[in-house]
């Protein structure tokens, strides 16, 4: 059984042999969309993407077409397009599959985006650990140059677009767009204060569009089939298909492409092989990457996977990483592990985040090991209050939200740890 139309946009080529090769991509209609775009006015391309309503798949959900429209038109500075392939949010591993199985889809999406904002140079910032993936990507870029798809006369149309891969070197904060830009400039990846936004002052002080891999890979089909077609997929305010990385306690973990709006229960039961030990064994799900609040099993029973429904239920769609936890999981222990992550990854620039992530991690250590005090739970909430909204970038919020969410949903487990010095689940 599948949900709605079962349309594939991002994974349409993934099962073909040698799907990463140019010949295979072109043999299945690849690089036709960019030709179509080159026949349109740049503003028409942006309008089409706006009509499609695709929202940023990197986590924040900002409408892509709208973002592109912020790039100033009569501005003498060069424009840049940057693809965020940092894929650092724990639980998330979808961009990797696009890159290794269909790199030309990403390149084509970037070529279209670049044309629409008049960017002549693009960079793909890929996390440093994806060494093999960067090789595949470089291979695809080399093929595209050799075929005249990239370079100073793309498709013989007199359009210039140069594209290069830039490898990161192990820093979660470089997934944050301005940290990424700093890193691309050869510096420490410490995020910048916004505004100014990258659309005005981005890479090398120039107007810059930055989008996630999945966002850009959605573009060729929007141009090929039209924005209205794309908007017909999914649900209101959440159009199109989305990759969900389903991990943890399911029988068939994997990356699944489905239309937005799919009931979570259906995603887990029909696609991901079901919760380990059966649906009744479900404890909770983090629906959008580890920075998002956890949802309890009874919410998972009815919630649908779209931006609005998840926000209403108390969490967020985020990057689409669905982390499934069965009843064997100690929530306190899980949050403790995440708090170590944020402490490690805080770039140290803002005091509330640098100090706060350390505090959270220390208190979580105490609670988990049974040495917590009754005040610790409120102290955690207080530390969260003092981080959220008080930092340059959203890493601080990302550290605080899961803690707050877990206390809200599973407070009794935290209290049990304090009272009994050990875990409820044995």
């Amino acid at each position: 059984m599948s949900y709605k139309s079962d349309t594939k946009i991002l994974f349409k080529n993934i099962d073909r042999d040698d799907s990463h090769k140019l010949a295979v991509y072109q043999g299945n209609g690849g690089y036709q969309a960019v030709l179509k775009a080159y026949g349109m006015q740049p503003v028409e391309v942006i309008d089409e993407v706006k009509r499609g309503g695709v929202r940023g798949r990197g986590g924040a959900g900002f409408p892509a077409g709208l973002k592109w429209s912020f790039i100033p038109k009569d501005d003498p500075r060069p424009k840049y397009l940057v693809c965020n392939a940092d894929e650092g949010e724990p639980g998330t591993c979808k961009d990797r599959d696009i890159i290794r199985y269909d790199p030309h889809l990403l390149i084509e999406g970037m070529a279209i985006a670049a044309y629409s904002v008049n960017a002549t140079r693009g960079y793909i910032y890929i996390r440093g650990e994806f060494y093999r993936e960067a090789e595949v990507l470089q291979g695809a870029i080399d093929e595209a140059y050799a075929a005249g798809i990239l370079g100073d006369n793309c498709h013989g149309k007199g359009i210039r677009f140069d594209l290069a891969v830039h490898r990161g070197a192990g820093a979660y904060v470089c997934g944050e767009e301005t940290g990424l830009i700093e890193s691309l400039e050869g510096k420490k990846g410490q995020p910048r204060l916004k505004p100014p936004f990258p659309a005005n002052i981005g890479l090398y002080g120039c107007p810059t569009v930055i989008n996630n891999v999945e966002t850009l890979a959605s573009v060729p089909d929007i141009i090929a089939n039209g924005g209205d077609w794309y908007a017909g997929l999914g649900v209101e305010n959440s159009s199109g298909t989305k990759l969900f990385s389903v991990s943890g306690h399911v029988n068939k973990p994997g990356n699944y492409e489905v239309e937005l709006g799919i009931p979570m229960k259906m995603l887990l039961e029909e696609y991901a092989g079901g919760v380990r030990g059966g649906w009744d064994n479900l404890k909770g799900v983090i629906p959008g990457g580890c920075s998002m609040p956890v949802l309890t099993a009874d919410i998972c029973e009815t919630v649908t996977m779209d931006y609005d429904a998840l926000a209403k239920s108390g969490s967020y769609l985020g990057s689409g990483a669905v982390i499934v936890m069965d009843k064997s999981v100690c929530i306190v222990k899980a949050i403790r592990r995440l708090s170590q992550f944020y402490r490690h990854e805080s770039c140290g620039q803002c005091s509330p985040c640098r100090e706060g992530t350390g505090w959270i991690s220390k208190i979580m250590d105490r609670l988990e090991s049974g040495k917590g005090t009754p005040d610790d739970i409120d102290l955690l909430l207080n530390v969260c209050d003092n981080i959220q909204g008080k930092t340059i970038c959203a890493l601080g919020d990302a550290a605080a939200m899961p803690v707050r969410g877990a206390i809200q949903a599973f407070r009794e487990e935290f209290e049990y740890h304090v009272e009994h010095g050990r875990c409820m689940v044995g």
Partner: protein
Amino acid sequence: MRQIQKDPNAGTFQFSETALGEIEKIYARYPAAQRRSALMPILHLAQREFGGWLSQEALDFVAEFTGIAQIRVYEVATFYTMYNLEPVGKYHVQVCTNISCWLCDSDGVMASLNGKLKQEFGTTSDDGRFTLVEVECLGACVNAPMMQINDDYYENLTPEKVSDIIDRLP
């Protein structure tokens, strides 16, 4: 805090011909006025060329070679965890223990490596063959648990598979 170390055995540094060719390609990727963007790729390359880690002497060489101030090179090298600031073994074994891997028994993977190599995490073996470390999410969560050895990912691990993989390393 990650600290830069001196290498008492450091000789003189020199990029190989292949590396110099690669560096030329790296510079070509960025606008002529933005050569500092080449620092991260050049550090990656330097680490490969100079024995798997970056000593203070190696960083000073990169500073001189690129014309970037030493302090800027140090800042970058200490900020990013993939730049090794101390020697690592021939096999750099990095086990992800973040949420999805932890849920899928990364503890078992660690125990298997501990037992097999008789070595604690955070250490390098005396013969310089293995460095074992715990790392954050490596972006392969649906194939948890997983580890990285040098450039390659090993996914959907079980304790038996881990043991097998170690046995097969040359």
